[in-house]
């Protein structure tokens, strides 16, 4: 999902997306805000669309910076602290730029029972990354999530948006090797 948004983001640097004349142009001159604007127009700037809007913004920018949060707050006429409170409540929002690749291990009940913790531990040691962080070389971000709703596939690992079911520590490491081209 983030891929399509990012592609759209790239094409947005062309002239297809124009910023609403009624809406103040973002001072940074970053055209990606036009994609957020498109979504905002679609939902008529409705305040109950906050979470949806944050998802779109995260898809477009990869993470939620203060600038982006403030932009969303202004557009929806919501207080910044409320937007910050909502965004930080949910695991799926992130406030740091992610690494080149993102690996999310589900640690929901079913996945936990099936040994998700071992997968997390092994990936963390093999790639020198803490949960919720990005490795020093910026190649891998490791995250955990609480139940992805695919418990039948437990334990579940999501690598760059692709769901891999029935994982094991060695299997997950092999997947990562394939994607990242081996551990340094």
């Amino acid at each position, binding site marked *: 999902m983030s891929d399509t948004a990012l592609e759209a983001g790239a094409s947005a640097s062309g002239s297809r997306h124009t910023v609403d004349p009624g809406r103040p142009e973002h001072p940074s001159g970053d055209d990606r805000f036009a994609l957020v604007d498109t979504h905002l127009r679609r939902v008529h700037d409705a305040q109950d669309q906050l979470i949806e809007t944050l998802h779109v913004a995260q898809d477009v920018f990869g993470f939620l910076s*203060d600038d982006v*949060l403030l932009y969303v707050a202004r557009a929806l006429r919501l*207080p*910044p*602290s*409320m*937007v*910050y*409170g909502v965004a930080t*409540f949910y695991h799926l929002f992130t406030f740091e730029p992610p690494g080149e690749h993102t690996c999310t291990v589900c640690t929901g009940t079913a996945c936990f029972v099936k040994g998700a913790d071992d997968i997390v531990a092994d990936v963390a040691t093999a790639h020198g990354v803490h949960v919720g962080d990005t490795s020093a070389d910026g190649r891998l971000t490791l995250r955990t999530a609480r139940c992805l709703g695919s418990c039948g596939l437990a334990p579940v690992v999501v690598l760059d948006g692709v769901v891999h079911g029935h994982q094991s520590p060695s299997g997950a490491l092999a997947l990562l090797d394939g994607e990242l081209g081996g551990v340094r």
Partner: protein
Amino acid sequence: MAERVPTVPITIDGVEMEATAGETVLQCARRHGVDIPSLCFLEGLSPVGGCRLCVVEVAEDLRLRPACATTVTSDMEVTTQSSRLRSYRRSILELLFAEGNHVCAVCVSNGACELQDVAVRCGMDHVRYELQAPRRRVDASHPRYVFDPNRCILCTRCVRVCDEIEGAHVWDVAHRGHGAELVTDLHRPWGESTSCTWCGKCVASCPTGALSHQGSSVGEMRHTPDMIAWLVAARRREWTEREARR
């Protein structure tokens, strides 16, 4: 002529009384001089039922009810004191004390703290849980006020008073569970907040030493939470319109 407010009969701790229709069990009890401990409730603000200190038993109801967020119903039978309620309240208080750094001897609110008062009244003399002793950064960036999250019990009175009465919504709760904390704007220093009007109602409402005036030292801080109900009455034009009706 004053309109007649409809009343409903209710029983609190075996005493029959008239409750005003629409009021909460806590409001009715307090009007009749029955003391139910509370922390997150503040007259004038919407109740959130968050701290659970005001829980009461209602006859024929297995669940405990927060008195601050339970509306009276006709012939309701409420019990505000029982060994079960006392032990729950003590546990809640112990958990609050264990979670933050509530060291009264060095607190600006020592001697005038609602948490301290309620702990004394509920007979909480020690904490059975392991003290978390968190290290939370104090925000003294505001020219007038100081926020010490170590003393914060997340009652959200400041959040509500700022949102509902001042209309600025500077404060909110960020993150969740054990990591939950109060933030101003986008978690920036309070002194840099562009939404804060410096009105001080959050400080007035704080039940502990979490929000205080710059320069207060140990035991010097006096909060004025009662002023909130007055402000609310004034904003409803309760006084001026009564004058006009005469």
